[in-house]
């Protein structure tokens, strides 16, 4: 199935895209999607999203169809065809 990733700020620089349609297996979870993207974009993506213990960085917010995954099933949230997934970094400029 196809889902769309949205990238902001540094992830936009890492992936060189602000959005990308990705082909993923049916019922892929958010967690699995992050692993796929880490494989695709390598160390820079991985070190942006994961901390040294291999966990997602706690200050990143993940949205599926603009709903925070904490209101869904967290990283185990299963994606559907045409879902939009966004990784929201807190930005500090002012």
């Amino acid at each position, binding site marked *: 199935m196809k889902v769309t990733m*949205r990238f902001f*700020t540094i992830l936009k620089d890492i992936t060189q895209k602000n959005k990308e349609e990705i082909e993923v297996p049916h019922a892929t979870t958010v967690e699995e999607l992050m692993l796929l993207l880490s494989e695709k974009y390598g160390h820079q993506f991985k070190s942006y999203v994961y901390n040294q213990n291999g966990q997602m960085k*706690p*200050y990143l917010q993940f949205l599926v169809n603009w709903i925070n995954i904490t209101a869904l099933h967290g990283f185990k949230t299963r994606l559907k065809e045409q879902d939009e997934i966004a990784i929201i970094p*807190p*930005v*500090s*400029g*002012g």
Partner: protein
Amino acid sequence: MKRTQTYLSKTELERYNRQMLLPNWGTDGQKRLKSAKVIVAGAGGLGCPASLYLAAAGVGKLTIIDKDKFELSNLNRQILGWQGDIGCFKAEVVAEKLIALNPEIKVHPLVIEITEENISELIQDADIIVDALDNWKTRFIINAECVRREIPFIHAGISGLYGQMMTIIPGKSPCLLCLLPKTPKETSKFPVLGVTPAVFASLQVMETIKLIVGFGEILIRKMLLFDIESMNFTVINVERNPECPICAHL
């Protein structure tokens, strides 16, 4: 917001006439604004438009805190800094222009760096602090003091064509540390177009005014995200951390 025996002059009634026509505002609302003391922490991309609209609305006392001088590269977005202000202290320049806009209010510039040592004295009589900063370290210093004093902190951060905004009401909403238990990496130079901080500063002013005048819904336990490039605007729920070392006791 406490109410005092504040008087509105004939010129003030005329100046603020249009906003006083709004429901739930009137002379009582305007008097609350006149009695209010708001600190704008930062006089840059967020601070310039935020302080401008707070002054225009008639917040009685504004304190503008910024240690820096205007540079040429600031002028695409720090809109109260003009060509002739390059090399001048931002807080002082902004204060002068706000008074010229609205001589009915008091504006106090502070050319000083906010630190853990001076924060208590700096915000001692403030009703609300507006986050117009450009780094996490200072944001967390103010966050801790706002929680300690139980005063609202209107957070915003921007980068490029994107940003986030959240109103922190200690004890009722997550504080900054609830959301960011690990300090994100600081960014020294980031891309930014002037309208990005302008949009978020306007939202911060709106929250500030709603809190002071006492109407509307506040962004409590919610974070507003706006990607201006794609025009995606969303509000997500955010929750307090019951073990937050700063605010869990409230």
